[in-house]
C-alpha cells in the first residue's frame, strides 16, 4: 500500500525509522486506506445501480424529464401532457410557497411566544408555556394529520353551506377563497417591491431627521401611508379590477383560494416550528446578562424600549444560528405535506415515479434540489448572522 512512496523516503539519512514505523508515513497511509475504502464502496454502489438498471432496461439518464407527466396537479394550470420537468417546477413552487411564507410567519409567532414565556403577566406567561409544551412534544406528522382531517376537513363547513361573510369571502372545507385583484400578478409584485423600497427610504430619512433635530422619528406614521399609496397606485395601473368569489352549487369561481391541503401543512409546520423558535428566543433572552436589563431600567427606558433597544438585539445575536437550523428543519419537513395530498416536490417526484419516471435519477434530482435549497437558506442565515456579529466589534 505504501510502495509508491518508497523511493521518496529512501534518500534521506539512515537514522530514520523503518517505513512501517514512521509515524508520518503511517498517517498518510491510513488516510489513503480510508479514502480507498470509501471510494471502493461508492464505486460498487454506483456500479450496481448502473448494472441493475441496464439489465432491466431502466433509463439511468435524465431524458425522462422531457416525457409527458401524465398526471394533473391540483390548484395549478398544469396540464398532464406537459413534461415531467414542468411538474417538478410546479412542485418546487408549491414547496417554496410553504417554506418561505412558513419561515416568516413562524418567526413572528415564535418570537412573540418566546417573549410571552418571560412576560410578567401570569395569563400570557402560562398560555405561552402551555403552547410550547404541547406543540414541542407532539410528533409533527400527527399535527399534520390533525390539522387536515380534524381542522381543515371537519371544522370548516361543507361547501354547500359555506360561511360567506358579507358575500366577499368564502370559507368551506374545500378551501378559503378571498377577493383578489383581477389580471396579472406582475403589477402587484412590482408595486410591492416599490412600496417596501419607499418604506425603507422614508424610515431612513426620518431617522436622519430625528438624529439631526432631535424630533421624534415617527417612522411608521410616515412609511405606512406611503406603502398604502404606492400599492393603490399599482392597483390603479393594473386596471382596478377585483374578482370576488362566487358559489354556484359546489363550484366556486373567482377570488384567490387557499386549499385545505395547503392550510393543513402550512398551519401544522408553522405552529410546530414556532414552538421551537419560541424556546430558542426565550433561552437567548435569558442568556443576555441581567445587568443589561437593569441598566436599561436605570436609564428610565420603558418595558418595551428595554426589550427593543437593549435586550433583543443582544438576544438575537445568540438566537440566529439555532433559528437558522429551525428554518432548515421547516424546509425539510415540508415534504410531509405529501401525507395530506399537498403537491410539494417530494410528492410530485413520487407520483411521477409511479407514472413511469425512473426512480434513481428522480430521487437523486429531489435530493439535489433540497440540498441546494438548504444551502441557500443557510447562506442567508449566515449573512444575517455576520451582519449581527459585526455590531459587536
Amino acid at each position, binding site marked *: 500500500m505504501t510502495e509508491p*512512496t518508497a523511493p521518496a523516503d529512501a534518500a534521506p539519512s539512515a537514522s530514520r525509522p523503518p517505513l512501517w514505523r514512521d509515524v508520518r508515513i503511517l498517517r498518510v497511509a491510513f488516510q*489513503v486506506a480510508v479514502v480507498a475504502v470509501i471510494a471502493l464502496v461508492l464505486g460498487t454502489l454506483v456500479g450496481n445501480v448502473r448494472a441493475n438498471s441496464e439489465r*432491466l*432496461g431502466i433509463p439511468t439518464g435524465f431524458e425522462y424529464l422531457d416525457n409527458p407527466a401524465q398526471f394533473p396537479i391540483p390548484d395549478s394550470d398544469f396540464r*398532464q401532457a406537459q413534461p415531467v420537468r414542468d411538474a417538478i417546477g410546479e412542485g418546487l413552487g408549491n414547496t417554496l410557497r410553504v417554506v418561505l411564507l412558513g419561515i416568516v410567519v413562524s418567526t413572528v409567532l415564535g418570537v412573540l411566544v418566546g417573549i410571552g414565556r418571560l412576560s410578567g403577566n401570569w395569563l400570557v406567561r402560562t398560555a405561552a408555556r402551555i403552547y410550547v409544551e404541547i406543540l414541542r412534544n407532539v410528533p409533527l406528522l400527527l399535527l399534520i394529520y390533525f390539522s387536515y382531517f380534524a381542522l381543515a376537513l371537519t371544522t370548516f363547513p361543507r361547501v354547500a353551506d359555506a360561511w360567506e361573510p358579507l358575500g366577499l369571502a368564502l370559507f368551506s372545507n*374545500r378551501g378559503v377563497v378571498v377577493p383578489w385583484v383581477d389580471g396579472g400578478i406582475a403589477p402587484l409584485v412590482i408595486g410591492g417591491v416599490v412600496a417596501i423600497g419607499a418604506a425603507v427610504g422614508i424610515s431612513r430619512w426620518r431617522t436622519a431627521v430625528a438624529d439631526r433635530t432631535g424630533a421624534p422619528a415617527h417612522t411608521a406614521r410616515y412609511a405606512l401611508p406611503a406603502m398604502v399609496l404606492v400599492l393603490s397606485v399599482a392597483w390603479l395601473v393594473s386596471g382596478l379590477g377585483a374578482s370576488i368569489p362566487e358559489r354556484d352549487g359546489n363550484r366556486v369561481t373567482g377570488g384567490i383560494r387557499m386549499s385545505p391541503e395547503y392550510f393543513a401543512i402550512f398551519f401544522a409546520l408553522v405552529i410546530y416550528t414556532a414552538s421551537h423558535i419560541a424556546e430558542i428566543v426565550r433561552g437567548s433572552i435569558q442568556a443576555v446578562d441581567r445587568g443589561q436589563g437593569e441598566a436599561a431600567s436605570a436609564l428610565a427606558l420603558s418595558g418595551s424600549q428595554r426589550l427593543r433597544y437593549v435586550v433583543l438585539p443582544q438576544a438575537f445575536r445568540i438566537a440566529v444560528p439555532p433559528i437558522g437550523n429551525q428554518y432548515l428543519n421547516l424546509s425539510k419537513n415540508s415534504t410531509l405535506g405529501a401525507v395530506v395530498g399537498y403537491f410539494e416536490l417530494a410528492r410530485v417526484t*413520487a407520483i411521477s415515479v409511479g407514472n413511469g419516471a425512473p426512480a434513481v435519477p428522480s430521487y437523486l434530482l429531489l435530493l439535489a434540489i433540497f440540498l441546494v435549497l438548504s444551502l441557500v437558506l443557510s447562506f442567508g442565515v449566515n449573512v444575517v448572522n455576520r451582519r449581527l456579529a459585526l455590531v459587536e466589534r
Partner: protein
Amino acid sequence: MRRLRGAAAILAAGVLVLGACTGDDDDDDAGDTTTTEAPADDGGGDTGTDTGGGTGGGDGDTLAAVQDAGVLRCGTRDELPGFAVLDSAGEHVGFDADFCRVIAAAVLGDAEAVEFVDLETADRFTALQAGDIDVLVRNTTWTATRDGAEGATFLQPNFYDGQGMMVAADAGFGSLEDLAGQVVCVAGGTTTEGNVATEFSRRGLEIPEVLPFDSPDLLQVAFQEGRCDGWSSDLSQLTGLRSAYPDGPDSLVIFPDAFSKEPLAPAVADGDSQWAQVVNWAVLATIQAEEFGLTSENVDQVLAETTDPNIRQFLGEAGEDAVLDPGLGLPTDFAYQVVSQVGSYAEIYDEHITPLGLERGLNSLWTDGGMLYAPPYR
C-alpha cells in the same frame, strides 16, 4: 518534501481505487456468466445485456431461486377489498392473493408457500426492480410505459377492468357530464389520475379538479367530509369500496359506463423470460380449468373418470400414455396442483369478486363472449 509525499500518497490512492474498481467489475462479469448459464432461454434478448449482479429477480434464475427458497414472494396490497385484504385471522384474502397462491401451487406444489409483501402504490415497481418480490399481483394496469420504463414484464391479465366514477347518492349527479369542473378524488400514483382529465377533455367538458390520495382509507375520509364530489377508480375497486362503505352501499352510486381500459395483469422483472412463462402458464391454468369444467371439488373425480385426453394431459396424468412435459420448467402436474389447491378462475372469481356485486362481463370465458382465452396446452 512533505508536499511531494502528499501528492505521491494521493496518486497511490488513485491507483488503488482504480485498480479496485476494475477488479470488481471483472469479478461481477465472471460471476454473472456462471449464474446465467443455467436457464436455456435467458432473457438476454429482451434487454440486450447480460451484465449486472446482485440478487435481483431478473438474473434469469428466478425459478431456481424460488424453488430453492421454497417460498414465493408475492407483492400485493392489504387495503383493496375483494382483491387483497387481511382478515381478522391475519390471512390474506382476495382475488390477487389467490393468484399468488396459484403461482405458488404451480411452482412449489404448495399454495400456502407464499410470502405476501404489502406494497404502496408508489413502491410496487421499485420492489420488483430491486428483486424484493418475485412477482407483482397487485391490481396493476398494464401500460406501455410500465412495460418499457419500469423494468417490468406484464403477463396474461387476470382481470379486465375499466375506470368508473362513484358519487354520493344524494348529491344530485346523474352522469359524468354533471361532474364537469367539480372535484374528483382518486388514488395517487396510478393511471387513474391521468384518465379523469383525459376523459373529460375527450368529451369536451371542463376538466374537474383531480385530488389524489395515497391511501384508500384517507380518501374515504375526505370523500365522506365532502372534500370531493366524485370518487374515481377502477370499477372493481369502486364496487369493493362501496360494499364496505360505512354509511351503507346504498348511499353511493356508481355510474355504469367505464371510460378506460384497465387490464390488470401480474408482472415480473424484465430479463427472465423463463420465469415470465412460468407465471403466465400458472395464471392460464385457472382459465383452462374453467373451460374444462374443473373445480377444486371435482378435479379428482373428473381425473378418475374422464376419457378426454386433453384433460388428462392438462392435469399431467396420462395413465399408460406418455406424460406431456412442455418444457416450461414446471412440474408436469402443476395444473392439477393449481386446481386442487386453489381452484379454477370461476371459483376464485365467485369467491372474492361476485360478493361485491360485480358481473363477470369481460372476465368471462371466450366461449361466453368474454376475454379469457388460454392458448392450447399441448
